[in-house]
């Protein structure tokens, strides 16, 4: 299960509990939509979207697709994206797919 967290004033945070896989990507997309809606409804301004993958050991191709989708939606709103990770494999995945050139990767 995924749970949203708004931790700072100018950011939105979505924490993924466990790996980011095809099994939970769809649910996560809905969570993100709800998060955006909530921010829009309350007219909250945010400049950073944080995806918390500190609990993840792996990201599969569907999960990666979701990250790209989220990134594009975030960029469309003029905001930037941060991904927090703790596992080396997750970092390697984002390096290999060159997402690290467009997303700020933060080691937890």
């Amino acid at each position: 299960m995924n749970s949203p967290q708004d931790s700072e004033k100018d950011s939105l945070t979505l924490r993924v509990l466990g790996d980011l896989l095809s099994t939970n990507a769809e649910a996560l997309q809905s969570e993100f939509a709800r998060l955006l809606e909530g921010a829009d409804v309350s007219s909250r301004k945010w400049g950073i979207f944080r995806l918390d993958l500190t609990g993840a050991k792996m990201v599969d191709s569907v999960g990666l697709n979701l990250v790209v989708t989220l990134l594009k939606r975030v960029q469309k709103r003029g905001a930037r994206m941060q991904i927090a990770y703790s596992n080396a494999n997750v970092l390697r995945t984002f390096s290999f797919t060159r997402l690290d050139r467009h997303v700020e990767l933060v080691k937890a």
Partner: protein
Amino acid sequence: MKWWPLKLKGEPLLVRLQLLFGSLERRRSSEFAGLFAQVREAELNLVQASRGLEAQFLATSSELESLAGFGDQFVKQVETLVSLATGKGCDDSVFSGAIRLIDQSTQFLVGCQEQTVGTLELLRTYNAQIGRLLAVETQLQRTMLPLRFVPTLFKAESAPLGSAVQQMFTSLTHEIEGLHAQVQEIFGTKFKQLEQTRRTVAAVIAQLDRQSQSLHEVTTTHKAQIESSIETLKKEMTSNHERDVRLGVLSKDIAREVEQIVMGLQFQDIINQKLQHVTAAFPQIEAKFTEFNTASNQAQAREPLHFLEQSCRLEAGQLQGAEGDLANAEAAIQGGIQKVLAQLTEMDSHCLSLEEFKLLTTSFDGMIQVLVEMIEEVRDLVGATVASAAEAYEVLRPLGGLASGLTAIIRDLSARIRLIGLNAQVQAARAAQDRRGAGLEVLSARTSEISEETNRISVDAASQLDALAAGLAESVNAFGKLQTTGLTQQDVLNQQGRTEERRLHAFRDSALETLRAIGDSLDQLRAQAQRTLATVQFSEFRQSTLPALRLPLIAIADGAQRWVQARGGDQSEAILVDGFKRNYTMASEREVFASVVSARSSPSAPLPSERPVANSEFEAFTEPPADKEGEPASVSEPALQTASERPAPASPNGSDLGANVELF
């Protein structure tokens, strides 16, 4: 003097001196004996330690084999990853299915868009027709307006003519009044519905127009984007096939380092043989020591000491050579393992970045991602198109029936009007029989004219409504068909689209899985490299065991040399150790022999014991001294060299296989 033996007192000087030298000789002999005891002990240690050294080398070889196994696995995984990421390792079927599906869906959307444009044109035409039909209402009202007054006029005109005539026109006036009521109803409801229909169709036109515009833009740019993206991706994949990959260069570097490690490990055999030659020389050395010990005078002692000097120096040189070989082998193996590990780590970094490739299949903007997004997009577009067609169908479907209904009403109206006209003509004829009915005749005639005109308008309107109904039905059918084909395309996208998406994701997942495996392999390699390095512990043998034998041999050789020189001996005296040369199989051994010989002929030449042992750099073995005339040169040993130095191939048989090879 305390040391003057008491028993020499009173003896002649010469005798005393001879006895003194004898005691000095005995002291010297005991020094040699001490050194020989060290040599014997060191030799025993050496035999045992050699077995230990062999076991260490064997352990290193085994660990190296495991390391090589992990290394091979790692390199294969990296090659697989690079192959997948650059498109070299996949056939077109991975992408072609998705490309075909997207292409087909885009073609469908283009077709939908064209069909919608056509249907829109028709709807605009129908709406214009509805507009003209709405004008019929005004026309009919205007035409039928006089009929409103006709019943009253009939009553007035027929009043003086008696009840029979009044009765005649009463039924006519009832019919006319009935007609009015019907017409009011038509104007009140049906034409209002027709007006509503026009607004509905206008709204549908506006919505479809917007969607069509947007679909047109999307499909046009989409089509261009698909074609351009796929073209660019294919071009990149094609040029990827030709581009040099750093991986290939790194693999070659690794192979070279492994070669050095393998050569280093072979030195165990070389060192072992040298040590065997050294221990093989000891019986002769022992025999000469005994001969020296038992010599009764200087002349007898000279030859064995001369032999001891040469042989000990020779064997010390051999041992020094072995120390150097071992140092070089240790450096080659340790250095090689460290370098291989560094190169494998670099290979891992390289496969993470693959900088020389602009586009990768697996990157966030690569072929896989582009195709997955395009499938999603066409799926959404087809869905929107189907929804739009369904909406238009639902809205337009009842309109055809409405038009048909109105046609029926107008036809009925037309029939009634024709009857009224006919009736009026009949009444006019009857009224004409009575001179007082002239007014009625005129009214009847006028009524008949109005009826004719109304009938004409009605028939025309009915025919237009028929055409409109047919047109609307056609448009509704078109949207119905569009909906049906759209649903079919949606099914295809759902099933085949999911299949292609799964295939694309599976391809990327296999690359990501390989990436994970590479990370695990690198960890295994690091651990195995540490295990392998831990077995490379030759220092004690090199720095302790061998010197423990070499140093006393040098001391014996130096002592013997000083003794011989002190007694007027000449360094150019005969070489007594020629026999040892027969056992020397290696060029480096013959080099040691030659240096011992040359040291004797040129006193300033450095003794083998003074030559430095290379610990961190490799020494190339030099060619042996020229053999006697007429004899072919012996084959040299290859050198342990750094990766930047390549041995010059110049073998006696002229082959390109190396200087140490001859094929018969």
